[in-house]
């Protein structure tokens, strides 16, 4: 049992395992020793299926080394989730010529498509671009869910095992406002709103307030930020709490303050045109659901 930040007592999940597990573990080990070759085959197949592969899109060959070992990088902007991806597509990618350098293909239970060989531009999982006029500026559009067991592989394939420290990472992502823990009621929160979390080596100031305790970051953004903290790379995460998780104009526009930061200032030129592109993205991506009126 543990006391939480706001005073209630809850049972905290323990990652070391509970007391009940010990007896079961012994039995499982015995059974494990009796694992058949078929079980092993299935496990290996599953591991191969869940492997994260980094490919050069045009040639469809795998990259032999990690992406950032192959190409020098000074700035890396990663958008995770559909709203963050839409923000970068309309505000950053239309203000310069971006060339695709590769993509990451992966499969897990959350993937909606089963065909991982033919990627259309709307379904591409993780696409990496660099700016033609300044090839050390990288951008990643990640619109798929990277599962916990795949996050480490993703990091290895992208950053490598010994990354350079002279690059700056910016991560953009969204989270539902009901995940935001605060003593106020969620009805009074000005959603969507932006919060930031940065590594120790990130010396600039963030363009919005920092994420307060006891809130935490989840999934791939957390993995990237932790990786950067461990390797002493300056990185900042901008997290947008919103009450509309599907592609939404107001949520995407909530990322606008980031355009004034040092990282993005030089990269953004046509803001009115960007709003037009964003509106077009919205209409083409509307999924019709009749459940909600």
């Amino acid at each position, binding site marked *: 049992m543990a006391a*939480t930040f706001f005073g*209630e007592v*809850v049972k905290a999940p323990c990652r070391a395992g509970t007391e009940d597990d010990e007896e079961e573990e012994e039995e499982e080990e015995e059974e494990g020793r009796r694992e058949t070759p078929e079980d092993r085959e299935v496990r290996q197949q599953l591991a191969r299926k869940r492997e994260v592969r980094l490919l050069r899109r045009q040639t469809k060959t795998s990259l032999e080394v990690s992406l950032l070992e192959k190409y020098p990088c000074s700035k890396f902007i990663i958008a995770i989730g559909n709203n963050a991806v839409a923000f970068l597509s309309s505000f950053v990618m239309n203000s310069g010529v971006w060339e695709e350098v590769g993509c990451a293909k992966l499969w897990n239970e959350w993937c909606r498509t089963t065909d991982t060989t033919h990627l259309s531009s709307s379904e591409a999982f993780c696409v990496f671009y660099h700016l033609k006029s300044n090839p050390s500026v990288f951008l990643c559009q990640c619109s798929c869910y990277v599962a916990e067991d795949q996050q480490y592989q993703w990091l290895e394939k992208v950053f490598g095992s010994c990354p350079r420290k002279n690059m700056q990472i910016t991560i953009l992502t969204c989270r539902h406002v*009901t995940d935001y823990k605060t003593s106020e009621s969620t*009805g009074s929160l*000005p*959603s969507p709103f932006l919060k930031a979390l940065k590594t120790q080596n990130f010396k600039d100031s963030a363009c919005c307030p920092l994420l307060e305790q006891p809130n935490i970051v989840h999934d791939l953004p957390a993995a990237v930020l932790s990786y950067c903290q461990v390797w002493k790379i300056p990185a900042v995460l901008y997290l947008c709490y919103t*009450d*509309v998780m599907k592609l*939404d*104009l*107001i949520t995407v526009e909530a990322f606008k303050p980031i355009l004034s930061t040092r990282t993005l200032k030089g990269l953004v030129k046509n803001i009115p045109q960007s709003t037009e592109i964003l*509106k077009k993205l*919205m*209409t083409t991506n*509307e999924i*019709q659901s*009749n*459940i*909600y*009126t």
Partner: protein
Amino acid sequence: MASRYDRAITVFSPDGHLFQVEYAQEAVKKGSTAVGIRGTNIVVLGVEKKSVAKLQDERTVRKICALDDHVCMAFAVLTIFVGLTADARVVINRARVECQSHKLTVEDPVTVEYITRFIATLKQKYTQSNGRRPFGISALIVGFDDDGIPRLYQTDPSGTYHAWKANAIGRSAKTVREFLEKNYTEDAIASDSEAIKLAIKALLEVVQSGGKNIELAIIRRNQPLKMFSAKEVELYVTEIEKEKEEAEKKKSKKSV
């Protein structure tokens, strides 16, 4: 924290939340935005129309519904429900039956407040029975009473109802409400067309594809309800855009 107290509707959490009701309010936020405005002589209801699938018949996707229509005095009670479509249909049917039953029993048409209270009581019953879930809908109910005063009420899944001068429900309702708080002035509702324009302007703040995705209905005192056609909405939208341009020109002249 919430997981132990949100499985059953009839269980309070230690800090006094009824989580199922709060989650029902989240379901409302998944519906498209609706706005209601009470003018001096007019009530306006506007809603964002979702794009209809190619093979779907548009007539079956009407959002603004009349609850009652008193032929002699030519007024009506209009409503719009936002949230789960199926829940909305069930509540509308019950409300319509109640309107007629009231007319037969007391020989008077329902007042807007009466029918709002009926809908709210119905919703509250479902937050206190076991085995049932709350209705995942909020409603905006507008109309004129016998005394000729315009009314706008809003209900939510918990069964509360309040009278409003102007309100919005559904997705991005907060943004629209803030716009209304800034722009609902005595001048803004002075004339009928100004009230209509205010409703359209409020919706344009959040509607992604402009005037063609707005459904609008009005009731003027002693006149039957009027549903706007797409062309009529477009006319108002063009007028609004013209006014905006002129305001901007004036601003730039002043600054020069």
